[in-house]
């Protein structure tokens, strides 16, 4: 990546976030260049979602500086796409796939949307980008998790944002859809230069694609290429307790962390899917 010569999309300088007595993270420095794909890893409660909320302008830093696209983050910015943690929809919610995507275009405006060819065209294009045309008219509540997630992706990308923030987009997806979603994000950042911050517990599906890992734990952080950060030494230092990083057949397994959940979700190691991709570099 030619990160050095382009203005970064995200700049965090000596950033700290505290809730009362508790320091979520501090001294955080992070520059994310256009087109860069950063995986944000770490145990529950390490402030991954809070970091996204800071970049969305929903949460203020306790100290330090943050800029998104050269200015301080503001809620509702058109240059940031967001896929929040999946909650699923009620089966009978009166909303079709394309209605969900259209909310990304103008859902924040007052009034009833007036039918227009341009509006329809943009929604169609966004649906086509993620390959979701087939269920554009189906009720969202009756689609599978993977189908819903594709629609959310289309919704987030519709405005062609400079920055895409994804919060656990792989949660409860089968391996096939995990790969579909990560590849969708990867293609987007390569073709459109979208910077991506991807919060996930599922390390292995994204490792082959990401440029960099930001690992948050115990109020500390580490960032760098996956190979540099995901080592027993670095993670032991981060957690302040012995942590073992094991690589088996191209898969990374982090063992001995206090919540030991982020690398081995739901017995997915039985599936050979992840081993298809080797660790980059």
């Amino acid at each position: 990546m030619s990160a050095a010569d382009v203005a970064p999309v995200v700049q965090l300088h000596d950033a700290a976030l505290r809730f009362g007595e508790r320091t979520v993270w501090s001294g955080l420095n992070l520059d994310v260049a256009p087109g860069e794909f950063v995986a944000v890893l770490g145990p529950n409660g390490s402030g991954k979602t809070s970091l996204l909320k800071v970049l969305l302008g929903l949460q203020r830093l306790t100290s330090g500086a943050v800029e998104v696209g050269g200015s301080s983050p503001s809620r509702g910015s058109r240059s940031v796409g967001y896929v929040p943690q999946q909650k699923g929809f009620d089966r009978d919610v009166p909303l079709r796939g394309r209605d969900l995507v259209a909310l990304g275009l103008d859902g924040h405006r007052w009034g009833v949307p007036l039918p227009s060819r341009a509006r329809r065209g943009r929604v169609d294009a966004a649906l086509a980008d993620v390959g979701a045309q087939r269920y554009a008219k189906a009720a969202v509540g009756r689609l599978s998790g993977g189908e819903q997630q594709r629609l959310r992706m289309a919704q987030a990308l519709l405005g062609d944002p400079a920055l895409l923030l994804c919060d656990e987009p792989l949660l409860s997806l089968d391996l096939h859809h995990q790969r579909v979603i990560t590849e969708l994000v990867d293609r987007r950042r390569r073709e459109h230069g979208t910077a991506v911050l991807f919060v996930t517990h599922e390390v292995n599906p994204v490792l082959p694609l990401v440029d960099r890992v930001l690992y948050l734990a115990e109020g500390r952080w580490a960032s760098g290429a996956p190979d540099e950060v995901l080592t027993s030494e670095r993670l032991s230092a981060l957690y302040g307790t012995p942590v073992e990083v094991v690589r088996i057949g191209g898969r990374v397994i982090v063992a001995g962390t206090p919540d030991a959940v982020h690398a081995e979700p739901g017995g997915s190691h039985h599936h050979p899917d992840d081993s298809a991709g080797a660790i980059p570099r």
Partner: protein
Amino acid sequence: MTTHWGYLHLAFAQHALIAASIVAVISGVVGPFVITRGMSFAVHGAAELALTGAAAGLLIANDAVSGALVGSVVVAGAFGVLAVRERERDSAIGVVLGLGLGLGFYLLHFYHGFETEALDILVGQITSVGTTQIEILVAVALAVLVAMIALYRPLTFASVDLDLAEARGVRTRLVGLLFLLLLCVTVTEAAQVVGTVLVLSLVITPAAAAQRLSAHPGVVIGLSTVFALIAADGGLLVNIVYVPDVRASSFITFIAFAIYALARIAAATRHSLGGRGELPADPEHSDATADVTDGAVG
């Protein structure tokens, strides 16, 4: 069986039909959002508290109708202030409802006029609607409809995905409070037609039936409104023409439920015939299975 078609030429019947139609339209429009936002209990609470508003209105100005309307705004304010978080909503409504009903009966104790006027609101007083009340109804309905049009997009966004709507710049708290206000006003007006106890039949039942038949947001609102109209006017006609000695409210609820039952049957039939409706079988799921199987072998 004696029929009374001649009654339809009389002012009381015409006023009743007009009032029922107006209330049906606003109930039908508001209903789908009530279901999506999970606010059925707020409907019930606001409907019962119409009694308190009516009692206060009778006591202060000898006017149950205006009292109920002003009361609905107070109720919306109380729900909104106490239920800041979504999870607190039901308990806050329960608290306000309990106090409100107690207050309502307390106020009635001091009212020495025609006490049934307030109690009428519990079962509906549709056949005693006057021109003034119709004028109030029209004004309220127009205000509710205009506000619903303005709120349509942000309300939809906030109802289906609160976190995302918040991040995208929707003022979710304001939108939620405004909808709560519209809901309480609508419910109070509906209470005067079908009665407090039966409001759910005009606000919830038609919308629930409509959601069984379509996922298109506009179609659902349209169907819900049509169903509410059929139930309200149909129930009223049965009452006026065939069974004048039984209250219209009962027939309104019967028709609303019949529509709901038919909608469920229609939806079930369609699903058993055509899988997921407009959606063909998903070839990708079989892909995914194939991936795993391939890998396991290799």
